[in-house]
């Protein structure tokens, strides 16, 4: 999902860059004050690890393969601030070493994956952990949060493309989200499997989240309620009619004229009618909402299947 250069116009690139820099500044400041020095090498190695892990090919079908993004994996292993910095480092290296992702678009890529993906994923992770207890809860939280974080990153990408006037919002949002709802399932599965593998050997490496296990059934209901809320936020909010207009108004306030190239901005709510389904956007909203609930259910099922495997044995002897 790395956005290359040449797609985003200057106002989008600079706005996302400014947002990313501010978010990173906050994260770096928190780390400077609160991070013990012994964790610094771990951050560097974690960044190298994420890059390496992103290169692993998880076979899907035919010749295609899925890959890890790792935003929520980083959160689970390092905490949100460190995860933001580590993901940024990965994106920087990919751009400056591999030309993967544009230089001008760096702000947007960092915004999508290292800021929105991390913070959104972290919020979902913490929320679900608070509701669902124990090891199973942690795994379900990680699975669902990684699904959400991938989706959030893709929505960010769609918004940037629309705001740049490259593709109309009414087209790019449904396209991006439907594709990424599926891709995100891979992210959820890979993230959870990797966490299980780590928990088996070194459970101390996973950031602890404590909840006491009680009132099981009620918690599950609450959890689904949470998932439903998230689904609404993801898929209904963007279509509150003021959203794309809001973006344009922000653009005007900031002094940006029409998109570069002299092309007029397309009508914000370009409605594409699909036969039998009404507007594509409404269809996407509904599908997205349902999809969120399904993803959550799958996350819980995965967690239930994997939880027994995630129990660690006695902590191994550690030689310096």
């Amino acid at each position, binding site marked *: 999902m790395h956005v*290359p*250069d*040449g797609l985003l116009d200057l106002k989008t690139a600079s706005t996302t860059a400014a947002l990313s820099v501010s978010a990173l500044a906050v994260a770096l400041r928190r780390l400077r004050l609160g991070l013990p020095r012994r964790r*610094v090498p771990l951050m560097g190695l974690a960044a190298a690890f994420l890059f390496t892990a992103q290169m692993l090919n998880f076979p899907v079908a035919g010749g295609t393969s899925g890959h890890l993004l790792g935003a929520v994996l980083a959160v689970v292993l390092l905490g949100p601030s460190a995860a933001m910095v580590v993901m940024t*480092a990965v994106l920087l290296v990919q751009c400056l070493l591999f030309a993967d992702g*544009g*230089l001008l678009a760096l702000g947007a890529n960092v915004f999508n994956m290292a800021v929105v993906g991390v913070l959104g994923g972290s919020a979902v992770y913490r929320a679900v952990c608070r509701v669902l207890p124990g090891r199973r809860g942690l795994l379900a939280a990680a699975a669902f949060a990684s699904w959400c974080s991938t989706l959030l990153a893709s929505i960010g990408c769609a918004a940037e493309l629309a705001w740049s006037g490259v593709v109309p919002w009414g087209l790019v949002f449904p396209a991006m989200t439907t594709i990424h709802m599926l891709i995100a399932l891979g992210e959820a599965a890979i993230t959870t499997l*990797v966490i299980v593998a780590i928990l088996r050997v070194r459970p101390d490496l996973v950031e602890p989240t404590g909840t006491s296990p009680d009132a099981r059934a009620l918690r599950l209901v609450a959890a689904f309620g949470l998932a439903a809320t998230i689904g609404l936020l993801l898929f209904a909010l963007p279509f509150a009619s003021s959203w794309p207009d809001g973006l344009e108004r922000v653009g005007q306030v900031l002094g940006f004229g029409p998109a570069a190239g002299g092309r007029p901005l397309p009508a914000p709510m370009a409605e594409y009618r699909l036969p039998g389904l009404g507007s594509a956007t409404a269809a996407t909203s509904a599908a997205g909402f349902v999809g969120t609930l399904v993803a959550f259910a799958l996350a819980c099922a995965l967690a239930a299947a994997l939880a027994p495997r995630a129990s660690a044995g006695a902590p191994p002897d550690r030689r310096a």
Partner: protein
Amino acid sequence: MRHDFLDKWSRLDSPIHRAPAGLKLGLALATAVACVAVPLAHWWALVAIGACLALVAAASRVPPSFVLGRLLLLEPLAAGVALLSVFQPDGARVAVAIVVRSTLCLATMILLTSTTPFAELLRTLRALRVPALLVTVLALMYRYLFVLVDEAERMQRARRSRSFSGRRAHAWASLATLAGQLFVRSSERAERIYAAMCARGWR
């Protein structure tokens, strides 16, 4: 995967390679801005940029096959978006604009990355007052990238030697286990690196 797969051409000697990293970075950024900001009506400007890039590529002695190969590898993303935009009014023009702009920008980045050793870029970042923690993380990441990639390759080879099922579920499970092991080893290595840094008086 050979360990120089990321840094293959950055150690050649050419006038482009010898230019200061900060200058190259600034020019790359300026080129990207120009590519995006120039309206399509002034297409001759884009052609001029393309010509300049070709000159730089020739002067840099980086093999053209490498540059073209990378272009082809990374281009599909832009092409995909271009395809989507065809459904717009005036779609063909937009699509062409996207492809031209993104190809020029991509070529710029490929030339930048293949003529500038990463260590120099880090020094530039430090000079630009990028926060020390981020630069340290980048430096450590770059240093240990190759170590981890080698380790991952060895682990995959070992696993493949003992995998006979070919079932996708097994592949996912074993890849995830590999990744998990890689992280655990990395975190233990990080502890040893911390000891080594302290041993040499890290403040």
